[in-house]
């Protein structure tokens, strides 16, 4: 049993599988002092395996089953395979997490030989289903290679009896009939960035013509019309310009019929750390932004607009079910290598996309090897992967090991290495910890205090 005191005095109590109850301070005192008398409270605590009759072993067995269920997905090793097909891009986003190059500069495209070597590795993984995600730079600048990889991957999947799906992460500025046709034929999803209203988006994403927002909106509408609304998802990145404008950002998404909103913080990688934009706001400011956005989304749901906040959905799945969400950044053991792996344009292999971004800043800590020099076993069994996985394991970390939210949280060795030089970090000083704790507290309180929110959260958890 672990517990966490909420700011207003109530206490979250969790069991080993992450199921929780929210107790009043007096109830928690009764529990911690071993003087429970309220039958309702006793029934509640027994139902969540917080307490048990000493002679009854069934609760322990049930709890063990739930813990095993949570960890069962770990054996599906590496579902997400990220192919960085080019480093070229025609945007200059201030928080870009890769060092962008001019779209005219050659030498930053992945070759067919590298792509084949990457596919060889990808299809060695034990996972029965693979998701191949094309990243850049702007991946549509190397669309021919994307077509090659998709066709090769589909053939291999058929031969090996695996499922494979595809996503292209693109700014949509280069979307044309050819791309649309190919995506339709091969059922390829599109992921794009939309930071909110025009002024926020264009300020974050300068490009020649200063029309990034217009192109993104045009592209979103076109994909929705020609490929279907479910074929496109958008992500926003929070910058200082976003703070205080969560409602407008959510409304922009709703106006474009994008009903999944992911209220993300800024990451400390790539250009973001060089431009120091990750220091532009503190955790408390972001939490206020997040709370405003979540409240507005719930209000929209009350009006019948089925908007989902995706980060909440990820956490609620862990909080309210025994399933893992698959979200790479919120897992322990960390999702690096286990959940995702990155094949860079030059053949280098990285444990995560953030690890690749660090390498663009001359920090190759998370480089696992090179496709043309190393074997699959070198990537997944080498020290470059095993050391951060082992050292960042949350159940072995001070503060995390006794945290009631540990099952909902994750180890992020790349973040902590980037910000402190240490895979584990010191959690009282960790913005990752502070941010996530704030979100967990918010969701637990809403879940317990707001019956409408509780209903929505249960839907989001099971989607």
């Amino acid at each position, binding site marked *: 049993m672990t517990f966490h005191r909420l700011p207003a005095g109530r206490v979250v109590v969790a069991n080993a599988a992450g199921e929780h109850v929210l107790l009043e301070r007096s109830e928690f005192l009764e529990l911690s002092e071993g003087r429970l008398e309220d039958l309702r409270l006793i029934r509640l605590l027994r139902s969540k395996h917080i307490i048990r009759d000493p002679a009854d072993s069934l609760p322990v067995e049930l709890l063990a089953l739930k813990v095993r269920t949570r*960890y069962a997905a*770990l054996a599906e090793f590496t579902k997400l395979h990220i192919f960085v097909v080019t480093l070229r891009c025609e945007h200059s986003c201030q928080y870009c997490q890769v060092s962008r190059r001019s779209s005219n500069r050659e030498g930053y495209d992945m070759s067919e030989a590298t792509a084949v070597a990457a596919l060889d590795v990808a299809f*060695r993984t034990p996972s029965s289903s693979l998701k191949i995600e094309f990243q850049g730079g702007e991946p549509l600048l190397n669309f021919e290679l994307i077509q090659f990889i998709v066709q090769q991957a589909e053939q291999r999947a058929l031969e090996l009896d695996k499922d494979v799906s595809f996503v292209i992460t693109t700014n949509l500025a280069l979307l044309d009939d050819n791309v649309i046709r190919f995506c339709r034929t091969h059922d390829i999803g599109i992921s794009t960035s939309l930071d909110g209203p025009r002024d926020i988006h264009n300020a974050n994403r300068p490009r020649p013509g200063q029309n990034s927002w217009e192109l993104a909106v045009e592209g979103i509408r076109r994909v929705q019309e020609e490929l279907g609304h479910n074929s496109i998802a958008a992500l926003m990145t929070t910058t200082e310009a976003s703070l205080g404008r969560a409602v407008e950002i959510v409304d922009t998404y709703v106006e474009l019929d994008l009903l999944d909103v992911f209220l993300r913080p800024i990451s400390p990688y790539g250009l973001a750390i060089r431009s120091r934009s990750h220091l532009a706001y503190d955790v408390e400011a972001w939490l206020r932004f997040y709370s405003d956005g979540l409240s507005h989304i719930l209000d929209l749901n009350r009006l019948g607009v089925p908007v989902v906040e995706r980060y909440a959905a990820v956490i609620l799945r862990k909080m309210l079910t025994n399933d893992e969400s698959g979200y790479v950044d919120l897992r322990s053991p960390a999702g690096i290598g286990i959940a995702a792996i990155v094949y860079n344009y030059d053949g280098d292999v990285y444990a995560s996309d953030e690890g690749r971004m660090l390498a663009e800043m001359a920090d190759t800590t998370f480089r696992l090897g090179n496709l043309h020099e190393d074997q699959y076993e070198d990537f997944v069994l080498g020290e470059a992967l095993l050391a951060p996985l082992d050292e960042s*394991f949350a159940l072995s970390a001070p503060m995390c090991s006794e945290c009631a939210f540990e099952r909902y949280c994750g180890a992020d060795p790349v973040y902590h290495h980037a910000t402190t030089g240490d895979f*584990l970090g010191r959690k009282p000083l960790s913005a990752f910890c502070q941010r996530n704790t704030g979100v967990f507290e918010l969701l637990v309180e809403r879940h317990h205090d707001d019956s409408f929110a509780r209903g929505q959260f249960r839907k989001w958890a099971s989607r």
Partner: protein
Amino acid sequence: MTAVSAHPEGVRVQLDAGGHSIDAIQRAAYRLCDRLSVEVTSNGDNWSCLVTSVDGCGPDPIDVADFRVEVIDQVLRERIRDSTEQTRNMILSLAFSGLVDQAPE
């Protein structure tokens, strides 16, 4: 028990040997080696840490406090890692279990 006292060359931090391993103390000292130099000697039931500043100007009290916090951090890491070793190894083994049947092509 921790005790801090002045020393002509810096600050002396006494750490109870029963509650602090030499490994944890040295790891902590290493983490702050950009600011502090820490000389550790055994003094019966205690470790005696002579803490000096690398720039020769006398250790900043904030840096000394940082060293003490870092020692606690390293002690906790060591203790919790030891107590959770079996669980951690079991879970990581599960994660890599699918690789057992992988044969090189």
